[in-house]
């Protein structure tokens, strides 16, 4: 009896394997697996067996049936699969047509560079501070050694409000505000919006963004300023960039230095962007004037430090060759959706 099953299993398996299409396979099914098929016929005979043989025969029968059915379904599935060659032809889409944006937004390019700078300075232990956009004359000028009617005030075109306050012309006022409330050592950056009363053109906007830095400790030196700015510039503008210092005058730093960085366009060779010098102006810096330290009650004989300030929107412009800075404030999505 068991050998009958085995024989049938072999025969049917081969028939399933050999069927060339779904119709053949169906014939095989009818012949072997249908209600009146050969398997059913053999299984009927189990009834006639002795009870001692019944159990084993039944078990074998079930195994064979299970095996054949699974082979049958497997084969049937294989017939129903559409071959890749057909799919390629019938289910074709035009992959060269443009993609569809499902949902996309973006941070403003200045926000992006600001986040990057904040992260960078935080990694060196700087605290990030904000200050008021609208300042008093004292913090914007006077406390920074720029008394009223001093020609150094000409360095910045200033908006004045009716109430005597000033949309800050730089973030430097926060040096004083912070030092008044905190004891040294100090290590902060102050990013923020600053205002200049200028006629706008592609290079000048009445609003721009500045990053102020202030470090005060017992031995903070000009050499420290150089290393700090050099690394910041390399981080934000690329490893091939250099900085250089040249003399300048800011009433609140002494010695003072203008910071130049390698021109993006010509990489230092000299071009129309940098007017042939190979360098572009980045901002101002210097050693904090002892008068400021004394003004906020620091011991100017014990503490010294550096400060710097630069327009980081300008770096963004140069990095991406944005020729007109006014685009930052036009809210034109054709501009913004590129960042």
């Amino acid at each position, binding site marked *: 009896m068991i050998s009958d099953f085995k024989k049938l299993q072999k025969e049917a398996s081969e028939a399933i394997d050999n069927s060339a299409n779904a119709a053949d396979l169906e014939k095989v099914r009818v012949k072997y697996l249908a209600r009146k098929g050969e398997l059913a016929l053999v299984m009927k005979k189990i009834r006639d067996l002795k009870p001692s043989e019944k159990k084993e025969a039944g078990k074998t029968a079930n195994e064979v049936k299970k095996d054949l059915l699974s082979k049958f379904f497997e084969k049937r599935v294989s017939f129903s699969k559409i071959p890749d060659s057909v799919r390629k032809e019938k289910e074709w889409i035009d992959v060269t047509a443009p993609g569809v944006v499902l*949902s*996309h*937004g*973006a*941070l*403003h390019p*200045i926000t992006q560079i600001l986040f990057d700078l*904040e992260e960078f300075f935080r990694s060196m*232990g700087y*605290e*990030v*501070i*904000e200050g008021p*956009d609208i300042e008093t004359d004292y913090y914007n000028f006077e406390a920074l050694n720029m008394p*009223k*009617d001093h*020609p150094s005030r*000409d360095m910045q075109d200033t*908006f004045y*409000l009716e*109430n005597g*306050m000033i*949309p800050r012309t730089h973030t430097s006022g926060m040096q004083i505000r912070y030092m008044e409330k905190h004891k040294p*050592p100090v290590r902060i950056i102050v990013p923020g*919006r600053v205002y200049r*009363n200028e*006629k706008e053109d592609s290079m000048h906007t*009445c*609003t721009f963004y500045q990053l102020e830095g202030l470090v005060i*400790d017992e*031995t*903070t*030196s*000009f*050499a*420290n300023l*150089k*290393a700090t700015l050099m*690394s910041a510039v390399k981080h934000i503008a690329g490893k091939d960039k250099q900085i250089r*210092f*040249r*003399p*300048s*005058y800011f*009433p609140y730093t*002494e*010695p003072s*230095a203008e910071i130049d960085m390698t021109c993006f366009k010509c990489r230092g060779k*000299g*071009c129309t962007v940098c*007017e*042939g010098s190979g360098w572009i102006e980045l901002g101002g810096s210097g*050693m904090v004037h*002892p008068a400021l330290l004394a003004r906020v009650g620091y011991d100017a004989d014990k503490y*010294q430090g550096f400060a710097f300030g630069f327009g980081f929107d300008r770096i963004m412009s140069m990095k991406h060759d944005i020729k007109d800075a006014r685009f930052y*404030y*036009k*809210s034109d*999505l*054709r501009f913004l959706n590129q960042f």
Partner: protein
Amino acid sequence: MKLSYSWLKSYVDFDLSPKELAKLLTMHTAETVVEADPASEKFKGIVVAEIIEIKKHPNADKLSLVDIKTADGKFNIVCGGTNLKAGKKVAYAKVGAELPNGMVIKEALIRGVKSPGMICSAEELGLPKSGEMEILYLSDNAKLGDNVSAYLIAKDNKGGNAGGNADGNVGGNADKDDMNGKDVLLDVSIPANRPDLASHLGVAREISALTKIEIAIQEYKTPEIDEPKEMIKAEVLDKDLCPRFYGFVISGLKIEPSPDWMQERLKSLGLTPINNIVDATNFVMYDQGHPMHAFDYEKIAGGVMKIRGAKEGEEVATLDGIKHKLPDGAIIMQDSEKIFDLAGIMGGANSEISDSTTAIVLQASNFKGEAIRKTSRKLGIRTDASSMFERNISTSISPYVLAKTVALLREKQKGLKVHQIIDIRSKKDDSRVIELSGGKIKNYLEIDFHSEEIAEIFRRLGFQTDRKGGTFFVRVPAFRIDLKGPEDLIEEIIRIYGYDKIPSKFPRSELKPAKENMDLKWEKIAKNTLANSGFYEVYNYSFTGKKMIEMLALDMEEYFKVINPKNPDNEYLRTTLIMGILQNITDNLPNFEKFSIFELGKVFYSKGRDMKEAGQKENFIEKKMLTGAVVNAGRKELEFYGAKGVVERLLYEFGFSKGETKFEHLDVAQPTFHPGRTATVKIKVKGEGKFEEQYFEDIGFVGEIHPDMLERFGIKTDVALFDLDFEKLLKYASEKIGYVDVPKFPSITLDMAVEIDEEVPASEVLGLIASAGGDLIYDIDLFDIYQGKQVGKGRKSLAFHIIYLSEERTLKEKEAKEIHDRIAKTLKERFNAVIR
């Protein structure tokens, strides 16, 4: 300030081209550029190029093919010159350049070979022919791509060629001799603290210190008094405004033209020579950096000169013929009858030198910078004199200045007689000694100087140095008023030594974590949430114009006004971000059908707007707002629900769970928002009182824009807006989100469509479902709101997924169904609802 190259050279015999000099000064003194001389306009498009290789023209014996290199690439030029030599620098006229003779260079085809431009001869550049040399060679140091004008400084035409030396070179060092009226101007940005530098002498001193070449300064002694006579009685009434009055009374003068050399010097600065006296005062002013003025003695009534501050409303007519109403504090001179000088800014017309003048009061007085600056601003006159005085010139140099002026006049005016020297001085700023420790230099710069090096730098600057131990005692000249403390001397050291030699070293200090700025952290979260939800961030100006304020029907009283805007759009500070956002929508709609934008920025207004603001001492409020818009979401009312959805997400990120936020129908109408399609956004906060009872606080709005407003902005699509007080969000934000455990047992979702009267708010229906359903309701999701034919007028249909879940066991379908039916029954009873 514009300075003449050859004038500087008359002081220091340096061997630097104008460009080299400009670079030296920029790196060590002050930013300096070579003034684009009108010649560079004349030679526009004609640049320095270098010859690389010369080949024969295939079709013409007399022509060559020349490979040249310039700043923007290599070119192959057809050229007829016979003196071509590889490696030489030549003048290359690019395509489009116009030669001095008017010829415009085009790309030419010469005997079958293309030539993009031309190599120029001296003649073609309008210069005298340089012998047989057809092609003009430029200095070997000329920089590729530079305009050639910088290298064409013609020498005196000795020898009849364009300064060409034996091998045809011009320029470069073409200034050993007299310039042929063709000087080069340098524009030096004089720092506000360096009055001494605003002169040829001052910059020449710097050049001397930098090049170590001695400066040739002629000595001028105060003249002897020829015939003593008290012709002028001078009195300084306000000593603060005039720290030194210094003048000579001179007679025996004849007005005539000034010497040619002096006229040339003045012309080189762009000034028009007038007469010997005026020219001498101008020449010495630009030479020494101290303004002076000559009055016609006969025109000073009573021989009286009084110097005082003007009273508001007093008048004076200046040399330019303009009558000025003076502000308080202007410095004036007055005789027995009239005001005759606007001191330090411009002389008076009524004391002006004329052709018949024979006697003058020549004075080089010192005036207070702040007063000069204030007056000059108020009157809107800036002269070279006023900008020199603004920097507060040292009171010590007047005698030298007048001595030189008189000596120059005397060269031609043999009859000149000095009668009186007036010197009234109340402020001294003589040379002073500054103490500087070697340790401080090292501390600041981290450079190990030898003390000899320091002394040498100071010597070059004209400072005298004494040393005791490690300390320098530095005597600085009187005219260096900027030098006050040791840090000023450290700047002198480093700028002469070179900023580029400062080493680069990171600070050493305690390795302490930076304090986190939580406000900025939240700002980052808010911005990222919005950007990730498909919003573009915009930056608008903090200013606005009157037009916009009127358009938005806002209260002008709240606005802070800028008193000096250059542009009417900058006249006021913005009080809301909404107007910027609306303008952005208008601007972007021509290019985009649908989009979402937001801005996180500051607004400014007067405290009157909301008295609730606490802690603001001044009547001025500056705060951050977060405002955004959804423009045309593509499905009816999706703008509103999209805007609301993002606000909900934002509040969730800020730690407010569902039960802690509320959106309520707007109760007070306002011009910006749609009266029926706007919600007040509220968050649950803890009171500050003793019991910290909780209440809901308004933080802003979310709603559709009022159709009238859309019309005013010409917006023809639906827009929903949110406008949130970001400072309040910051105040109550919490990093703890409303986390609940993920369920262990499966849930059952059953749907229900509820048809009710349209004025019943969804929030009430939701509330009722929740309370009627009890603990086994896990979540309710309102997924559709329908109004239209199928439900009839005045009715609406709300479709919900109601999710049932037990936290203890697997809920049976039957149980859920029972609760579902109970909810339906309650809704029918309460809202007269039809349930589907």
